[in-house]
């Protein structure tokens, strides 16, 4: 069991201190015409934790992530972030509140180099004016250098120095996933959303990615929300898990609690009919 106190968070089994509520989803309902993708779901995300959302295909996990990143607007329900109810926002406005994400199907900018791709992650932190940029004088040039240094740290962290100047289109799948994570990390997000970061990877790449996720959480204290199909990975990585099925929440708690939850077992393994 968690020793959860309402406002102060809890301590995990490995001794990490989890903070209070960072984001709270309250009774979210999302419909596409007649299809109900998310049905009245509530859960919270706490500062510093790794929160997983799992469920069978079509359960509404990605839709949930899209609601958080402002890509979909739920018909009902509220998103509370940093203690305030979030007004309806465009995705780029959400990004500026410190939420970064990666995509299930890699969404890198194929025509740019790895370095430029990661630099785009810092766009919101750079604010040199038009004239300064056009003249490449003063702030623009200075800023470029400062942010390059930050980006180099991320590159170093994710061990992709050797492909810095390579066009993204030439990279293999596993590295592309890592570059995408680098771009999200470069934004220095408070909450990082990862949509199936390990889809289509082999065991070794999965291990690398898991290590990076844990390191990010540990080193930068980034709150991570994660969708993943690989149960082993999810159960090992995450502090708390939300289980969805057909748009409904059927379980919420620590990996152990979820593993023993009857409804979850029913959804994943099926039950015997006598």
């Amino acid at each position: 069991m968690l020793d959860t106190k309402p406002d102060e968070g809890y301590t995990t089994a490995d001794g990490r201190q989890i903070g209070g509520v960072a984001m709270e989803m309250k009774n979210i309902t999302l419909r596409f015409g007649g299809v109900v993708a998310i049905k009245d779901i509530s859960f919270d995300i706490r500062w510093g934790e790794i929160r997983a959302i799992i469920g069978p295909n079509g359960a509404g996990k990605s839709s949930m992530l899209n609601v958080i990143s402002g890509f979909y607007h739920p018909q009902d329900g509220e998103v509370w972030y940093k203690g305030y109810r979030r007004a309806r926002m465009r995705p780029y406005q959400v990004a500026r509140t410190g939420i970064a994400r990666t995509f299930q199907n890699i969404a890198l900018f194929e025509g740019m180099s790895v370095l430029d791709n990661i630099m785009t992650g810092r766009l919101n932190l750079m604010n040199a004016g038009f004239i300064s940029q056009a003249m490449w004088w003063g702030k623009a040039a200075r800023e470029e250098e400062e942010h390059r240094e930050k980006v180099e740290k991320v590159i170093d962290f994710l061990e992709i120095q050797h492909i810095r100047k390579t066009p993204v289109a030439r990279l293999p799948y596993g590295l592309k996933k890592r570059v995408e994570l680098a771009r999200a990390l470069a934004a220095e997000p408070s909450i990082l959303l990862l949509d199936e970061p390990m889809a289509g990877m082999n065991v070794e790449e999965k291990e690398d990615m898991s290590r990076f996720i844990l390191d990010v959480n540990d080193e930068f204290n980034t709150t991570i929300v994660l969708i993943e199909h690989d149960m082993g990975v999810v159960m090992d990585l995450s502090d708390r898990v939300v289980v969805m099925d057909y748009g409904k929440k059927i379980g919420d708690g620590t990996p152990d609690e979820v593993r023993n939850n009857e409804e979850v077992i029913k959804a994943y393994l099926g039950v015997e009919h006598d």
Partner: protein
Amino acid sequence: MIYREAGDFKTSYAADNQTFPIRGDRVAYYLVIAFAFLVVPFFINDYWANSIVLPFLIYAIAALGLNILIGYCGQLSLGSGAFMAVGAYATFKLTVAFPGMSIVFVILLAGLVTAAVGVLFGLPSLRIKGFYLAVATLAAQFFLIWLFTQQPWFYNNSPTGMISMPTREFLGYPVTGARASAVSMYLFCLMFAVALAWLARNLTRGTMGRKWMAIRDMDIAAEIIGVNPMLAKLSAFAVSSFFIGVAGALLFGVYLGAVEAGEAFGIDKSFLILFMVIIGGLGSILGSFLGAAFLIVGPVLLKLLLVNQLGWPSDLAAHLEIMIVGALILVVLILEPHGMTALWRTIKEKLRLWPFPH
């Protein structure tokens, strides 16, 4: 082994980010600039200026502008001819209304007017993209040309419907009108071309350029990482139209001297500039110059070869010229779909290892 990057170590991010990281490139660039400013003026005559150099410089500016829009921001436009007309007519109206205003200032203002018009016609890009946007920008082409040919206010009620540029001086030398010499016109256009190319490079290497390219490569992802798509697209339209407007102003003021909108800035101009951008290389500053050179200098050289060297009749040569240039366009695009800059890049990669195969 003059041209190589081995041994050229960078010790700061600024040095790593510079436009020409390889020393050979840097030297070549300064040599070309010095040659253009210090040597060419002594040899240029009316023939070379009017048949090759001036149109090359002016269309290179237009190609730069369109390259920013299509090559960097991924927004297709077929309205460049009309935007050039806006630059030309704005120059005419401004310089006639304020004869004392410096011609450089007039041309820059004309560019700003074009930028505003470009933003207006760029608004559809917020809802539609790709070929559909190209068709929407056609509206600009036809509407603006209609405006300039049918509304007498724009050509000051001149009976021929044409506008003509009065003589204007820059630093004491006439650069427009009949008295302008080849050297002064050349240096005037060169100044604009170099300054605008430098501006384009700066805008595309930093935050602005990355926003444009992000929108080009994947607009949804760009929005998710925090690019405001409206600002990015409209700023690309504004900057691009500014360049094209300045090109139109120079084409009218310096090169042609007198124009009629339908004839000088028709849809064929839009296509000509689009071809320059595609043949030169999308998303490349050098490509804009190469594309303009290919389509402006190529035909003239062919004509010189066929008529002056081989002695063919000039009407036959004129028809052959069109066919040969068309065939060359196909050859370049089949050899290298990404344009002449990609060809240059391949040559560079080969040069790195030459004379060894691996």
